[in-house]
């Protein structure tokens, strides 16, 4: 076949492009992690060489670990992210289903209303939100953060999910209705499995800004018990701004857990995307 002979150079070309971009994507991350294991002289003298026995030094890590309980911060971040993600996906998918499935008065209006939140940074509402949390006694709790992030993530989730839900075939749902399934069963048993790939996408979208947010942890939950890992890292950067050993170590500590989690979950994510692809 002619395609077979033509595809070899093309495959090489594809690998070349992908590999180049992979290098670009990973280089800064590797650079930071690599240098975090070096002495101060090693960092400044030869930034591009991996640590050698001569320049290997863990001083950065000892400084960081002596300063704050990064493991605990990490736990907080995890609780907040997973909690918010759960509610965003559940509530978001339900609302998206209602908007895309049923024709009712005010449907478009409701869709626009729910999309409004994409357009204004929620940061602006800080003072009012904080007052709300103070009034309900939720300051310095992880619940406060979960609530805010759920509200923050919903508009985008509804926006994307309703786009995808419109593409789910009506025949399937109508067949379910004829079989006497309730609307709830149709949603949870028929529709949700079909839109799994888009839910995975929404999950990633929602997760990143939550995990990385600095502002609300700083305002709503700055106490030692509720500090998130991003806030911990930022405070640390402020404190040790000239100590590059410590900074690179703190950055690595903030990167590594996410990286590991991501590598574990990216398999699930891709499996979700491929297996459930809407045909």
């Amino acid at each position, binding site marked *: 076949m002619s395609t077979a002979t033509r595809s070899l150079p093309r495959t090489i070309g594809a690998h070349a492009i992908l590999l180049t971009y992979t290098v670009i994507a990973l280089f800064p991350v590797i650079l930071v992690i690599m240098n975090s294991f070096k002495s101060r002289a090693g960092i*400044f003298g030869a930034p591009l060489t991996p640590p050698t026995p001569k320049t290997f030094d863990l001083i950065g890590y000892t400084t960081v670990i002596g300063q704050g309980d990064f493991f605990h911060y990490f736990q907080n971040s995890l609780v907040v992210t997973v909690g918010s993600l759960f509610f965003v996906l559940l509530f978001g998918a339900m609302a998206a289903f209602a908007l895309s499935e049923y024709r009712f008065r005010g449907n478009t209006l409701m869709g626009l209303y729910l999309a409004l939140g994409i357009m204004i940074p929620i940061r602006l509402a*800080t*003072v009012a939100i*904080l*007052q709300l*949390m*103070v009034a309900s006694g939720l*300051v310095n709790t992880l619940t406060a953060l979960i609530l805010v992030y759920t509200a923050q993530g919903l508009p985008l989730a509804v926006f994307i999910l309703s786009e995808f839900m419109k593409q789910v075939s009506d025949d399937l749902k109508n067949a379910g209705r004829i079989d006497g399934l309730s609307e709830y069963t149709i949603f949870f048993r028929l529709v949700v499995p079909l839109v799994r790939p888009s839910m995975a996408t929404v999950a990633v979208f929602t997760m990143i800004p939550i995990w990385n947010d*600095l502002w609300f942890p*700083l*305002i709503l939950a*700055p*106490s030692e018990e509720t500090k998130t890992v991003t806030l911990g890292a*930022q*405070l640390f*950067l*402020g*404190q040790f*701004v*000239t100590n*590059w050993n410590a900074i690179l170590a703190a950055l690595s500590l903030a990167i590594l857990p996410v990286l590991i989690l991501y590598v574990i979950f990216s398999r699930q994510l891709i499996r979700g995307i491929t297996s459930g692809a809407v045909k």
Partner: protein
Amino acid sequence: MKTKLLTALLLGTSILGTAGVAYAEDVTLNIESWRGDDLSIWKDKLIPAFEAKNPGIKVVFAPSAPTEYDAALGAKLAAGSAGDLITCRPFDKSLELFKKGNLADLSSLPGMENFSPVAKSAWQTDDGKSTFCVPMASVIHGFIYNKDAFDKLGIKVPQTRDEFFAALDKIKADGTYIPMAMGTKDLWEAATMGYQNIGPNYWKGEDGRAALIKGEQKLTDKDWVAPYEELAKWKPYLGDGFEAQTYPDSQNLFTLGRAAIYPAGSWEIGLFNTQAQFKMGAFPPPVEKAGDTCYISDHTDIGMGLNAASKHADAAKTFLSWVASADFATIYANALPGFFSLNSAPVKMEDPLAQEFVSWRGKCKSTIRSTYQILSRGTPNLENETWVESANVINGTDTPEAAAKKLQTGLDSWYHPAK
């Protein structure tokens, strides 16, 4: 019989009650601060010293990053979740908080008498009637230099501007060291370490500053443009790519021994002592001719106030009185060399570099940064614009005259001093 029982019961509960109160008196005070760097000093030295003397009061130092401090504090004060004790920025920023009712009036706080009117002026209403923060420290500007480098190149410590530039030329010609470690990326370095550092010698310290506030002088006058002209001359002596050099870059450049002179604030001393592997010295901003009166920026920088909404105002006041004491001043000034106590009681400092800085108070006239009092109340904000323009002048993207004109035009748009 019945009444007796009832009285006994009541008595019992009241005793129990008071016991409960005594127990609950173990209050915890939270300190809001932007000084994350000082975390260990508060934790290990200052707070234990206070708690040892004041059983029943626990203190927690909870800093946030300097860049977020003001915004975060503002939000927390507005919502009522801020800490009991607030670290105060000088002048208008804190005055604004006081006017909003966020800071309590501390004029009658025991210990306030330990401070001179000048020290208190940074945290007073314009009429001087109410003081709302306990002054903690001031910082002094000057130049820190690498003594080993100066010795090696045979450079004497410069007294005059000509000597200063001759020294820079000599270092540059030799090529071993970058003559001066300063970058313009973070903007404030150019304004604070540059303009406010060398400026007072030109505008004659307090005289010029007061005249500017009264409207008798303008930023476009010779005395105010001249520092920019000198800054523009610094450019060839800075390191490669200084436009993207951040403040920590500059610090590293100097402490790694790659640069010879560092335009400094005295707060650097503590860090430099731990990082630099060479001997250091300091000199005040050079004057025009030998024997001229020298002026230094001795800026009231940090104080501490009481959150008006604090539930533990009495305990917080006890703490603030201690902050106003000579005890606190001694621990603080020695733990943080380069933060000079504002307390009237003389403080003995061990650090030689800090002693050098503070000795200039004797031979030079002190002033504070020109943009801090009154002049940065409106929009555009003079201090912030000074950052931008100082960096522009050093980068060469604005001439000194153009920069001065921009600043004065901005100031004129909202500031109209009563003549």
